[in-house]
């Protein structure tokens, strides 16, 4: 800024200075030249009159005069006299412009610049009555010579102008810039500066307001985004076009074990598994890609989608539960068909034998009994499957006031003969455990647990059913003293068709769905099951809320 001001000030000063110089020089030079010429004319006329009257004597008398040179030339151009030089040595002057003119017209004039260009000589000539010519000449300095003469003061003036311009420029720029520098841009309108700045300041103020509101808006959006992604159980990662992380939600950073400051870094610094790299490169190429990864024993599905503009979105779902459910469903279907087939084969076989008459007369009753019992097994199985699928569907069942103690007594009476057969003593203890629930489902719970205890308890053993209620929860405990369930099987006994000892299923006649039904029925009521089992028996405890409310 200072430089520019300096330049303009200096330029102005020099321009004005030079213009003045040229004007003054031009005006004075032409004035003095005109004056000199006039004077020269007078001198010439005087000399001419003198020579006419006195001849060469006049000239000799006048002699050499300062600033004036007189030359007398004969009609043929021979120099007769010259005030400044020896006439004899001078060449013929007939060819000179002014003399030639004077010889012809009576008077002539001319001007010549000296060889060095430093002087200009003006000549005037006049023809005398005898035909000779008298010439007067005067010389003066040319403009460049004059300028050269005043060079020193000129330079001094220019240097002065330079210094003055520099000083003025720095002062001016300080004056201009000073207030600009001291402007408080945070509060533009509270500044006291010159008026020319106020449009700028109002604009700054307006833009600042705009920026503030935009920042607030951005902050709000970010908080919203973070609130949404933060509460997601799925992992979400946003990537820029180079694979740098723009945003990562807590679920994703927990999954990949990323630290909090990984935003802005490359995704590869967080995880560089082949699957992840593959889906990201596919997404960057503009295609959706999926992959399955395993982390900390859980299965995840990774989905990468390209975003217009070159980035990518990574979504990570926990699919452990889904995969497990799929596996269970597959197993269930396979199991159901198998379990349905076995009794049907039995029935088919017996029926075929009867049909072809291969059965000894008198033994038919045995085969009819087999067909009946297998058919009833099939029916029980189908009923269990239907019951389970109704529970799976989440169907609503009518609820009523039920007492687990009553149910337990009922079941114990029904299971009495069976228990007696195996020499097991079946007892019911405890007080009333009333709750609002689906009576049929609760009966299934009690029946299946007690039935299992009787079936799997050791012969001649003891099965104890205890019921009580406390703190809004009804509790049912079924305890046997059988061989127990080995620890590795315990987590799976509630799965459908899961059997601890596969070879015994025929013998005990269970469907393999009992405990699964128990689990679902308890879940339906919002209760919980706990299983404790060791070599000395199994104890299953069911806890149900007394005020059941179907959600």
């Amino acid at each position, binding site marked *: 800024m200072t430089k520019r001001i300096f330049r303009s000030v200096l330029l102005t000063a020099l321009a004005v200075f030079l213009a003045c110089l040229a004007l003054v020089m031009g005006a004075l030079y032409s004035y003095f030249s005109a004056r000199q010429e006039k004077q020269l004319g007078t001198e010439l006329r005087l000399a001419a009159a003198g020579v006419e009257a006195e001849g060469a004597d006049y000239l000799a008398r006048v002699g050499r005069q300062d600033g004036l040179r007189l030359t007398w030339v004969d009609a043929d151009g021979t120099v007769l006299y010259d005030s400044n030089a020896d006439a004899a040595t001078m060449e013929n002057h007939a060819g000179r412009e002014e003399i030639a003119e004077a010889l012809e017209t009576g008077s002539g004039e001319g001007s010549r610049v000296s060889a060095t260009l430093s002087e200009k000589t003006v000549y005037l000539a006049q023809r005398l009555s005898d035909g000779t010519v008298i010439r007067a000449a005067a010389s003066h300095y040319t403009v460049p010579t004059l300028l050269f003469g005043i060079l020193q003061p000129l330079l001094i003036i220019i240097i002065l102008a330079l210094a003055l311009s520099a000083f003025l420029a720095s002062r001016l720029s300080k004056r201009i810039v000073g207030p600009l520098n001291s402007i408080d841009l945070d509060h533009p309108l509270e500044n006291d500066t010159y008026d020319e700045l106020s449009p700028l300041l109002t604009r700054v103020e307006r833009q600042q307001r705009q920026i503030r509101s935009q920042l607030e808006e951005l902050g709000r959006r970010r908080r919203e985004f973070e609130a949404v992604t933060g509460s997601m159980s799925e992992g979400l990662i946003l990537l820029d076009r180079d694979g740098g992380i723009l945003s990562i939600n807590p679920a994703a950073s927990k999954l990949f074990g990323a630290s909090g400051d990984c935003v802005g870094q490359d995704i*590869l610094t967080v995880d*560089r*598994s*082949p699957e992840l*790299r593959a889906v990201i490169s596919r997404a960057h190429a503009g295609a959706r890609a999926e992959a399955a990864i395993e982390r900390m024993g859980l299965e995840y599905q990774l989905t990468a989608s390209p975003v217009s503009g070159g980035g990518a979105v990574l979504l990570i779902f926990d699919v452990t539960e889904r995969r497990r459910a799929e596996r269970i469903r597959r197993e269930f279907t396979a199991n159901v068909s198998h379990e349905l087939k076995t009794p049907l084969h039995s029935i088919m076989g017996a029926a075929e034998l009867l049909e072809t008459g291969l059965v000894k007369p008198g033994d038919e009753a045995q085969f009819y009994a087999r067909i009946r019992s297998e058919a009833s097994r099939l029916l029980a199985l189908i009923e269990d499957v239907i019951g389970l699928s109704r529970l799976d569907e989440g169907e609503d069942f009518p609820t009523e006031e039920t007492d687990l103690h009553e149910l337990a007594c009922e079941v114990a009476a029904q299971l009495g003969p069976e228990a007696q057969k195996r020499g097991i003593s079946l007892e019911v203890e405890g007080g009333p455990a009333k709750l609002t629930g689906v009576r049929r489902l609760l009966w299934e719970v009690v029946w299946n647990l007690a039935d299992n205890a009787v079936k799997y308890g050791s012969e001649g053993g003891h099965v104890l059913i205890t019921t009580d209620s406390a703190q809004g929860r009804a509790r049912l405990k079924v305890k046997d003293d059988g061989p127990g369930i080995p620890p590795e099987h315990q987590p799976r006994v509630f799965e459908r068709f899961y059997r601890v000892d596969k070879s015994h299923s025929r013998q005990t006649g269970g469907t393999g769905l009992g405990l699964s039904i128990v689990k679902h029925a308890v879940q339906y009521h919002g209760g919980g099951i706990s299983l404790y089992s060791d070599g000395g028996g199994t104890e299953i405890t069911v806890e149900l809320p007394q005020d059941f409310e179907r959600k």
Partner: protein
Amino acid sequence: MRQRFDGQLAALNRELISMGALCEEAIAVTARSVLEADRQLCGRVSALEEEIDQKEREIERVCLRLLLQQQPVAGDLRQISAALKMITDMERIGDQALDIAETAGFMGSLDEADAELFRRLARTVVAMVTDSVDAYVKRDSAAARAVAKRDDEADEVFQAIKLAMIDRLSQRPGDGEYALDLLMIAKYLERIGDHATNIAEWVEFAATGYYKGREVL
């Protein structure tokens, strides 16, 4: 200008990490090919090795161009020169993984005891490579030094395999091919461990300027 340079350095970093990831994958697949005696996996290792070679040339070019055009100093110079050295070791890891897979192609499955030893060696070496790349990712010189310590463990298991093979040969001289193949494989793995140590040393150099305990830059 500096911003552009930073972008180029970040790209170099990214390439280096993905090359490290390729190495990890190659060793993991190789180890599986030995343990499962699966010849199909050899093809995958060979594809990975090719990719690693390509990455090496790519990174080399980027490094040289950066050195030439940006004339980096201090930390930047350390990072680029360390990268140049690291890719050589990574490339060797890829080669050796392929060598192992090729040798394994002619072998049957391992005996249970040998498989256990081999598994231990493979686990150690894979962990060393993973740790060295992790150390690079996190610019963690302490983690880099820890990699070098694990090398002793790898050497120890290699010795155990060697002794087992000597023992085997003295008892069943007919098993010469098996013993030599397994020994070669174990040696290759052990060499991969050495390369991982080298990488870790360069990581420490990139982070601190000290190489093998001496200040270099």
